[in-house]
């Protein structure tokens, strides 16, 4: 076989596979996007439902559509229990997030930057809560509080939420620490920065995006948690607990208002962080060129 023949042959083969591939892409090019669109719409159905029914002129239970009203939005606290539960959830979420983010960030820095014994045991201790069903975490803490004779209330909820948030914070911040160039901190030390200065002026600002992401995640986890809360709340109400208890006799439309408002706030926050990250990436790319 001459080189000429070989070239023609190989061209023919490439041509054939190219057509085959084009044909395949032609098929996939509409099936997959359509599927993805339908799937995302499906995921959004209950969100849309909750939002629409926040405008329902409902009586006691908010199941049948009785007409459009803005009253639920303008008088959210007409049902005082809803607002009380929401307030508790906010307090719990903020306190648990602050504690969990602080402790989790410290652990994440230590895990990436330092060498010490019992490292794998510590990783396991942090991994296990994420691999344990919530009902077990809740029952275990409740058993401890029972044995110790601790009165359940807002304090025990905060303790419980901080516990399961720490693991997630460690994971989120750890991935950020490991992308950090240690040379930057070294430069800080070379310029006679004290350890505290190096940390607050160099390390912390670089870690901040990761820490913010971790804090948002832990607030979201705490705010929406029901299973662990239910075991450790005593008589204290939280937003999810309020919904669970009123599910039997009907959820007031004000709950839909709060859930929808929280939803849009969260989505806006996420969109802002995503878009600004994208803008930053583009800017860095431009500067790199």
């Amino acid at each position, binding site marked *: 076989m001459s080189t000429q023949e070989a070239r023609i042959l190989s061209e023919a083969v490439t041509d054939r596979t190219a057509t085959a591939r084009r044909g395949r892409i032609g098929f996939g090019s509409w099936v997959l996007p359509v599927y993805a669109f339908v799937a995302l719409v499906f995921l959004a159905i209950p969100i849309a439902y909750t939002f629409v029914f926040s405008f329902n002129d409902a009586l006691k239970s908010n199941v049948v559509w009785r007409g459009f009203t803005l009253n639920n939005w303008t008088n959210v606290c007409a049902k005082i229990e809803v607002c009380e539960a929401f307030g508790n959830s906010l307090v719990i979420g903020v306190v648990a997030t602050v504690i969990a983010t602080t402790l989790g960030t410290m652990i994440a820095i230590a895990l990436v930057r330092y060498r010490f014994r019992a490292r794998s045991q510590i990783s396991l201790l942090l991994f296990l809560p994420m691999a344990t069903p919530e009902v077990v975490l809740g029952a275990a803490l409740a058993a401890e509080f029972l044995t110790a004779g601790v009165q359940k209330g807002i304090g025990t909820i905060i303790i419980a939420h901080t516990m399961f948030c720490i693991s997630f914070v460690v994971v989120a911040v750890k991935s950020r620490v490991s992308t950090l160039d*240690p040379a930057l901190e070294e430069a800080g030390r070379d310029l006679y920065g004290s350890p505290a200065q190096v940390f607050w002026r160099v390390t912390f600002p670089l870690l901040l995006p990761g820490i913010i992401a971790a804090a948002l995640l832990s607030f979201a986890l705490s705010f929406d948690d029901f299973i662990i809360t239910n075991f450790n709340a005593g008589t204290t109400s939280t937003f999810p607990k309020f919904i669970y208890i009123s599910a039997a006799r009907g959820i007031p439309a004000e709950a839909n208002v709060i859930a929808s408002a929280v*939803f849009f706030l969260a989505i806006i926050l996420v969109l802002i962080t995503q878009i600004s990250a994208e803008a930053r990436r583009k800017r860095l790319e431009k500067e790199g060129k």
Partner: protein
Amino acid sequence: MAFAAFATGTAKEQAPRRKSRIALLLLLPGILYMMLFFLVPLVSLVMTSLQAPVEFGDIGEYETAFRWENYVVAISTYGEHILRSFGYALMATIFALLFSYPLAYFIGVKARPWPLLQKLMLVMVIAPFFISFLLRTLAWKSLLSDEGFLVSSLKALSLMAPDAHFTGTGAAVVFGLTYNFIPFMTLPLYANLERLDTRLVEAGGDLYARPATTFFKVTVPLSMPGIVSGVLLTFIPAAGDYINASPQFLGGPSTAMIGNVIESNFLVTNNYPAAASLSIILMAVILVMVVVYIKRSGTEDLL
């Protein structure tokens, strides 16, 4: 995205550089916290699971004992619930995988030329997280109820028996579990597929493999770490869930899962030893499954 980081283990360990007391100071508060409020409670749960009722005591009064038969009683009384939990969770995991794979593939591979579209679609995937878990489950309850649009039109078209229900059945519970945990499946799959080397897939085509063969011999094995973490992140919370299966939500009288039994024993009938031994059983079974599954699928580095 924390789940993605957890899922794919991308956090590369840098060579630890210095030994220091600072490490101890950084670790101590958090680790003490986890010991006090995670490890000690687990021990306390084991102790509770072995307790015996106080003789002539009130309901809910128990004393320290080593009553191992609590476990035997728990399994014989609630064996059905235990099996149902794992059955429902398994079905929900399979459905979530089938639902998520094409979606994650589209976002992670096909949508690569449009990063902004990728980001937007990811936000839509996690959007259900931002509306209350309980409210979104109740939304499905209303939508799928007998008066709801779907069931009533199916009945009008005689596709469903007039006296049949959807809410309150096992199918509704599996549906709810699937819906609620889909993002846990899609995110790790996306995180993995986003880094899929498409040249390897093209090579499959160049070697005259049919698209299906390429998919099962190249794409799926390459995305195995994503599949494994998605399956774990879906299966574990689904097996322990008691919201979807509760009669106030999507379940009925015969759909109670292990979580429902733990809840009612602990919080309603104050039968703490029964609730504790069921929790230990649930945790033990899940841990064994996790270890076996990770070993089998050859992704040990996840741990």
